[in-house]
């Protein structure tokens, strides 16, 4: 065996770079299985809800926060919800699996990588998945002329990544400390699905009974949906947009910090 030069004090970027081959291997193995949920399902929603149901809604003359049609109204909402679901899918079973079943992380932590490096690289992969899934979605909807603002749509692309992280990091932290996967089914039922349905993706939250309208404001997805809609439809309300960014950014930041903490405890006990 020859001796080779290895950076003895690698920086953060180099430590992430060292994990790229692992994640490429993972993606090569899993991309086929994710094609339908990542790239096809969203369009089934667009057709079923936007085009077919939308025909009924539009003829009813509903008020849709300034959107020209029901299809244009729900398109940004579906994109934002897709960001949430993609991120959730990548940070529940895969994280617990890497600790418990595949033992990926247990091997990694015996190398120069730290739990923070492991978390960051995994979240990098989540960003990649959200970016490709939502990027393709935005692009196709944009080409079909559903969005009025090109710049807004480009910004909305980055908002999807923010939404992905706002959900992905707290879920990552939660999964990293879990002993078994039973709670995942509960999370899907009591968190992901209700948020999906009631966060303003399908109808304005002002349509909710007053007593629970404020609940929608607590929903991170509502912040994401509203921000995406403002940007793509060119109806930006500056202060409100800023609030959305702050809420999502705070969740992502706190979730990231919590993820590192929980994974460190899990792996280095």
């Amino acid at each position, binding site marked *: *065996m020859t*001796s080779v030069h*290895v950076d003895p*004090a690698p920086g953060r970027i180099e430590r992430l770079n*060292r994990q790229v081959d692992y994640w490429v291997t993972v993606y090569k193995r899993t991309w086929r299985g994710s094609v339908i949920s990542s790239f096809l399902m969203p369009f089934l929603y667009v057709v079923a809800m936007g085009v077919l149901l939308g025909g009924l809604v539009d003829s009813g003359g509903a008020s849709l926060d300034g959107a020209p049609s029901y299809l244009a109204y729900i398109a940004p909402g579906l994109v934002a919800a897709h960001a949430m679901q993609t991120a959730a899918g990548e940070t529940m079973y895969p994280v617990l699996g890497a600790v418990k079943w595949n*033992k*990926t992380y247990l*091997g990694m932590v015996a190398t*120069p990588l*730290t739990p923070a490096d492991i978390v960051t690289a995994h979240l990098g992969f989540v960003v990649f998945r959200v970016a490709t899934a939502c990027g393709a979605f935005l692009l196709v909807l944009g080409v079909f002329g559903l969005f009025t603002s090109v710049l807004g749509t480009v910004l909305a692309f980055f908002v999807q990544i923010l939404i992905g992280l706002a959900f992905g990091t707290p879920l990552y932290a939660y999964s990293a400390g879990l002993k078994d996967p039973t709670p995942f089914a509960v999370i899907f039922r009591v968190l992901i699905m209700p948020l999906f349905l009631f966060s303003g993706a399908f109808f304005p939250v002002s349509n909710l009974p007053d007593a629970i309208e404020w609940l929608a404001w607590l929903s991170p997805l509502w912040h994401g949906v509203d921000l995406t809609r403002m940007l793509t439809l060119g109806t930006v309300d500056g202060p409100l947009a800023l609030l959305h960014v702050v809420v999502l950014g705070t969740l992502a930041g706190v979730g990231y910090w919590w993820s590192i903490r929980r994974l460190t405890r899990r792996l280095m006990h």
Partner: protein
Amino acid sequence: MSQPVSHPDPTAAPRTSSEGPPSLIRATGLRKSFGDFEAVRGIDLDVPAGEAFGFLGPNGAGKSSTMRMIAAVSPPSAGELRILGLDPATHGPQIRARLGVCPQEDTLDTELSIRDNLVVYGRYFGLPRSECASRADELLRFFQLQEKARQKVESLSGGMKRRLTIARSLINQPDLLLLDEPTTGLDPQARHVLWDKLFRLKQQGVTLVLTTHYMDEAEQLCDRLVVMDKGEIVAEGSPLALIREHSTREVTELRFGVGQHESLAERIDDLAERVEVLPDRLLLYTDDGEETLARVHERGLEPAAVLVRRSTLEDVFLHLTGRTLVD
């Protein structure tokens, strides 16, 4: 294989480079607690570069807990620990970069192919792709896994997984190799291949630290070892010195009918320095086994089977911990 006899001396000054090889592992008063339970209760270690050092001890003695602290993946609860001269609390990544670790339980990535387990792992250490690939192929050949290279880990037998774990621990050409029960589950041939490899690594200057339940392995591989029991070190020395210090020259083994050993032991316990009662036999510790056997016969006892042999580490272990090595 030379067997330098060293005597345990906790007050010995720490080695410095002028006196001999530097310490790769130095621990003083090292402790590890899990909640209220203390798994490691204040141990001192000093392992110089180039040594092959072993941990022996019954189940639950604290061997793996100690190994994990040395591997810089488990923070000590108290005491001082230096690995390669560095503090694992602050220099974990730098330490781990130079370690090879074979944990007691395999941590192979079950979703990757056998070869990818090695290649991808080498990348974590910052090795270039081409280097990872050539080292992986070499290790697969050496550990006789090359035919399975493309298969998933799940398709391997237990012993093959073990071999792959050991192969993986060598991908970064470590200075310090930590092996927690490396040969558990290996067939005799694979064990000898591994011993041979470890012996060659040692000759190249790699420091070896291993735990084992096999005394032949400890005798073959270790220059020096410690016996741990209940979180403490109860003996330390070379295999020969330990045998000399804690056992007699010879052992007379007597087998009687099931259930008779306890009562018969009382009738002959004056014939040996020490008598151990095992469920299936009596062990008489003595300097002249044949002589002792003759005395046993004089007393009119007729064992179903007898064996006179030299003392081994197994006897040291039994004496110190009251337990057999493999239980």
